């Protein structure tokens, strides 16, 4: 009996992972509902179902075995599952690496790089609020305040929109909130020198670099809090 319950659970989780990898939002919702009915622990469904699936997608994307559309669809499918499961988990037990507000800066409407980053951050376990493109500095900060973001991730794809990244730092200083949010920058013309010049907390040459830096910064932050 026990074995059959265990194998039933394993089978559900396998299907859930497959549905996320396939980017099938509807199927993910169906399976999650089934998992809930069959008493699969919501936290387990996330940690053994959704998260490994999105990680797998992220790794395949890195190797170019899957591409952007696949990754975005997988991220949406995962979100759909999370939206059903999260309300069933006590807040303190929710596995979260951190909260990120992401967007492309004002005047810039390029989104692909930012979309990749957002999807990879989701895959990395972050709660991501994507503001889209052409986002003024004040909006980044307001959203970060609203959701208690750990990180503001600002993308710029043109030399002439780079200053928009500096604007966010200026704005944070003006409202005395600079120490409350980490600011990571990235996108085509962004360089490490530029990031240093404007006082950003980190810079990612590629979207994957961005995720690694976000993870490292969150670890550093956790260590600082522990001290």
């Amino acid at each position, binding site marked *: 009996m026990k074995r059959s319950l265990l194998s039933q659970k394993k089978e559900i989780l396998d299907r859930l992972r497959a549905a996320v990898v396939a980017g099938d939002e509807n199927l993910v919702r169906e399976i999650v509902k089934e998992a809930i009915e069959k008493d699969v622990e919501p936290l387990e469904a996330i940690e053994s179902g959704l998260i490994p699936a999105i990680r797998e997608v992220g790794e395949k994307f890195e190797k170019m075995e899957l591409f952007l559309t696949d990754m975005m669809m997988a991220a949406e499918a995962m979100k759909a599952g999370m939206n059903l499961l999260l309300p069933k988990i006590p807040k303190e037990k929710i596995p979260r690496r951190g909260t990120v507000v992401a967007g492309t800066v*004002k005047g810039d409407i390029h989104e692909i790089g930012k979309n990749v980053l957002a999807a990879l951050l989701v895959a990395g376990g972050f709660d991501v609020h994507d503001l889209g493109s052409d986002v*003024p*500095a*004040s909006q980044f900060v307001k959203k970060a305040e609203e959701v208690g973001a750990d990180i503001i991730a600002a993308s710029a794809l043109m030399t002439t929109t780079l*200053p928009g990244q500096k*604007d966010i730092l*200026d*704005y944070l200083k*003006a*409202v005395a909130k600079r120490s409350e949010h980490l600011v990571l920058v990235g996108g085509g013309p962004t360089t490490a020198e530029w990031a240093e010049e404007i006082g950003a907390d980190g810079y990612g040459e590629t979207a994957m670099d961005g995720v690694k830096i976000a993870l490292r910064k969150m670890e550093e932050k956790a260590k600082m809090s522990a001290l």
Partner: protein
Amino acid sequence: MITYLDVLKQIHLGPICSEKDFDLKIFAPELQKVLKEHEIRFDPRNPISNDDGLADDVWKAAMDFYCDVGTYCLDTERIVKFDENDIALTLKTAPSEFTFGEGKQRKTLTQRKPEDRTPPWCFLGAGGAAVSSEENLLSLVEGYAAIPVIDSLTSPALTAVDGVRIAGGSPMEIYGAIRAVGLARQALLRGGKPGLPIMNCISTASSAIATIAASQPQFGLRPSDGWLCGTIAEMKVDYGVLSKGAYLLSWGANVGSETAPVLGGYAGGPEGTALVNTAYSILGTVIQKASYQLSFPMHFRFGCNTDRNTIWTISLSSQAITRNSTLPLFMLGYLASGPMTEMVLYETAAWVIAATASGAHIEAEGVCKATHIDHFTPIEPAFAAEVAYAAAGIKRSFANELVNTLLSKYEEKIKNPPVGMKYQECCNLKTGKPSEDYIRLYSRVKRELEDLGLQFKY
């Protein structure tokens, strides 16, 4: 002296401030403080003030106010401020004489003073109001060109191209603007005034891209025309406004700073609106590098500026600006009523007399609040010009009497004004001639004004 590049630097360096904070914590309190300090008071019995001291007080108050408040940039959420001495120097050294038009229609614009005998510059036409068809635009502009004393044209705006509505920022707006420019130029040629400047470039274009696109010389506009660049209420600019300026000033175009403080809005009542209207002429010079200031304070509720309170604002701010600077100033009238009504002629006479006696030039005019498509004809601006010529040189005290009499004839109807008729209903589209009824109406009102003591020059 403050350069345009200085302005463009400051929009990225000035103090950060949310729009809400600018409006409520900076603009409004400072305005109240300055009005109190300078004891500026509205007198409803005298819509045209005769008090030079009051006018000068308004100017001083406006300078204090502008130096403290600055200009707000919506896109960068920062305030642009300059040192008072730099502002004063920029005003002092601002050019005061500008040439518009070509050939026989070439003329120099300079400032007038209150009670000036020199007739105002007559910048006549639609006030940027919208027409329903290209045929109407052509006919109207030819009609305007026929006005004997017209110095420059304010062209109507198109609303659609080939049946597709124009939307701001879209390619349709570009097509519309290019087409409207071409049509206006063509109509002026047909009307026998090929050199007449168009001074409200470009009425069909609100966005920077459409303005810039349709300004390319290949489409018909010339350096001897004039471009209106609006600010945003109150005391605000954005990238769009400044981009138009950057383009136009780069090749030496004449920019008109277009401002419309709202009586009953952030500017408060008549006193505040008069002060803000005056401060706008400083903003227009310092920030926009304008050749001419064009103002149309508007009543929040009525949507026009021919009510008693707003006429007082027009008159007092005109006196303040023209007594204390060298800036050429236009007032633009917006009337509540429409064509083929006696009210439209009374309103026209009232605001034109007020503006002329107070030192302004005139842009005439926005009929029927410029919101009803096709509700305007060449008769109204033609009448405005005749009144302006008649009012040049009259004393402010006499102007005050005239305006009070005129107000008594229409101010009760401002809340529910008659919209009158469409252009094609009271004028002949092909010949441009008004109907017999309209001619009779116009002649009767003109006689009434003569009976009140206004002496028409023609």
